[in-house]
């Protein structure tokens, strides 16, 4: 009982709880293709770490955003690498999520009783795309500005509600500093909060229902 962990464990009974996950035998047919979801989670962890570091120096305002990105890239030690990793891990995460979905589709792992987990996973896929879309504007360079101008104008073609959706996204009629701030808040506060909740649900359901093995 001298080990600090066993002192905590004897009071909170942690190990028995976790042993059930760690030592549970897996069904047959769990191959490397079953690691794609874990890969997506790993990219999300990389994105969280690099994103937090970037947010120490990034300033989400129309006049400062571009200069703060330039500062991160050229002056901040290792800043360029954090930004490069953030960009590439984002692409990697989208690719991993798509591959994971394809694997789940092919092995039919969404079949009862796992229907709800498929729905949660599909929502997480949409959130991942929303992360990518909102993050694209943040450098506030020509590419970012015009891509977001076009991207946020697309919903305006929907009859009746389109113009309203565009204004909701932009916070006005044009892409401006208000839009930049909205996208920043989406990217840094709202999407991560919702994603963490859904990821908890995703993993909790896997824990309760077990992994669906090979065919």
């Amino acid at each position: 009982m001298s080990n600090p962990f066993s002192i905590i464990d004897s009071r909170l009974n942690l190990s028995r709880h976790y042993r059930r996950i760690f030592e549970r035998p897996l069904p047959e047919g769990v191959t490397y293709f079953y690691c794609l979801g874990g890969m997506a989670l790993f990219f999300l962890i990389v994105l969280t770490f690099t994103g937090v570091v970037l947010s120490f120096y990034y300033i989400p305002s129309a006049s400062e955003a571009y200069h703060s990105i330039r500062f991160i890239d050229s002056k901040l030690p290792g800043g360029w690498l954090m930004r490069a990793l953030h960009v590439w891990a984002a692409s990697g995460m989208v690719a991993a999520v798509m591959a994971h979905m394809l694997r789940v589709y092919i092995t039919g792992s969404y079949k009862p009783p796992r229907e709800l987990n498929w729905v949660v996973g599909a929502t997480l896929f949409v959130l991942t795309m929303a992360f990518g879309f909102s993050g694209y504007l943040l450098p506030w360079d020509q590419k970012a500005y015009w891509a977001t101008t076009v991207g946020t104008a697309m919903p305006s073609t929907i009859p009746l509600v389109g113009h309203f959706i565009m204004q909701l996204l932009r916070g006005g009629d044009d892409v401006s500093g208000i839009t930049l701030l909205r996208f920043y808040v989406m990217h840094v506060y709202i999407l991560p909060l919702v994603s963490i909740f859904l990821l908890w649900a995703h993993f909790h359901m896997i824990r309760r229902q077990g992994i669906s093995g090979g065919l």
Partner: protein
Amino acid sequence: MDNRLKKFYPDYLFEILLVCLFALEGALLLSYVFPPVTGSPVDFSRNFLPRPEWYFLALYQMFKYFPGNLAFIGVAVIPAVILFLVFALPFLEKTHSRRLRDRKFSAVAAAILLVSAAVLTVLSCF
């Protein structure tokens, strides 16, 4: 307990971490070889042909085929139908069999979706 069966720890976790290590190496390699390029600052008067990220290219390309008042079909209707089908997939398929050959209709639809997304993505590069 059957010793041939894998356990999450250590068998599966080792595989996952190995895949994660390769993923990290890949991201690092790409970061060093192709770091992101920051363009020129926003210029409201200068033309710039915007291109979205690769995973939006298919949507962007499809949009070009619906001119004028029909644009919302490419922007909203088709993506909404596809999203609905994806979300409702477990409830739409009647069979409980997990094998692809027992859900041929769904498999063909999924293949068409994937191929058209790939074709649109390639087309958008020209």
